[in-house]
């Protein structure tokens, strides 16, 4: 049974989770736990908090598996938005989480090349977005990734980068808007 479930596509696996197939839930957690925990710990910077938040993510996913809509996002994206939203709520309550500046460089696209296989998978998943991201000026990449993957506001990014808030805002804005071309469904 487990072996069979392992072969399911992400969508089919989530459908099995929605049907309360107990083994499917285990396979689902195993398949996505590194991503979910990875985002949680990136945003929160605290292993214990991230562990808890990742568990809550899977609980939410299990409860709301029925609301997943493949037209809007992949299963991985859907799951990670749950993690992101939970982390933003947690950060509202518990602000001023110290941020490790080295983490920024780890988030940059080319740094994943330390593991070529992983980098290939990521490039594939991100698709055109990864290409466009790599094409942005590095300071815009940093601002966009700090805002999205690390959940930082413009004023926090200004602190981290040692730049004025207005500059941080402009970098986020310019970067995000340039990336829109990568997700446009049809070329204009």
């Amino acid at each position: 049974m487990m072996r069979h479930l392992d072969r399911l596509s992400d969508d089919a696996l989530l459908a099995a989770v929605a049907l309360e197939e107990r083994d499917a839930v285990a396979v689902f957690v195993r398949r996505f736990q590194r991503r979910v925990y990875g985002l949680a710990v990136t945003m929160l910077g605290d292993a214990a908090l991230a562990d808890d938040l990742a568990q809550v993510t899977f609980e939410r996913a299990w409860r709301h598996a029925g609301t997943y809509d493949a037209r809007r996002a992949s299963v991985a994206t859907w799951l990670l938005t749950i993690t992101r939203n939970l982390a933003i709520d947690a950060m509202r309550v518990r602000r001023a989480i110290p941020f490790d500046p080295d983490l920024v460089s780890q988030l940059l696209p080319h740094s994943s090349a330390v593991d070529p296989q992983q980098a290939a998978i990521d490039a594939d998943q991100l698709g055109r977005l990864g290409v466009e991201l790599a094409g942005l000026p590095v300071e815009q990449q940093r601002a966009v990734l700090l805002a999205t993957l690390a959940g930082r506001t413009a004023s926090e990014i200004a602190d981290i980068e040692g730049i004025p808030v207005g500059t941080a805002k402009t970098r986020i804005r310019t970067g995000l808007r340039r990336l829109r071309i990568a997700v446009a469904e049809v070329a204009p």
Partner: protein
Amino acid sequence: MSAQGSVGCEQFDVHADELALGQLDEPLRSALLAHAADCPHCRSLLDSLGTVADRLLLAAPRVEPPAGFETRALSRLDMGAARPPRRSISLWWVAAVAGGMVLAGAFVAARLDGEPKAATATIVAAAGGEVGSVQLIAEPTPHVLVTITAPRPGPATRNCELQRPDGTWVQVGWWDAADVASGVWAVGIDPTLLDATAMRIVSDGDVLATAAFD
């Protein structure tokens, strides 16, 4: 910030990035969303920024969680974290999107493609007219999947029954028409019901619609 009252396109544009990143507080957030609901241009901007922000999450580093994570996560699900108790049966809904479009083929196709279907049939209303379709599906677990494309008004509670080859009817689950007017409903079934010859939708003893599997 003047969050009260109506927001214009210029103000929306200033805050669109923070809105897409989930970083805005009320009441500004609601004011901006209200504007987007009425303004196709700003809605399209928000959609595309939101898609970028969401999809970039895929670039997050993958990190092995602390030892025992899987066990902790699973036991958390087992412990009292039950789904809403309203229904004792398992089901999932795909709410119809705005505009009355029922279900993009992508969803069902992505999920069911390649999975053996036991049977498919058209659902016909008792008063005549096609209502939707029903499928008996064996994988990954046996379930019946009902797609309602042309909802009919009527009592809220809809019981789904399957007929065994010996003619007996078995209720497999129910849904509330008030929840979702149209969309997809599914429930896990006993494997022996994959041989069902017919499906009917019953409410308060009245048969609202039927489907006969070939």
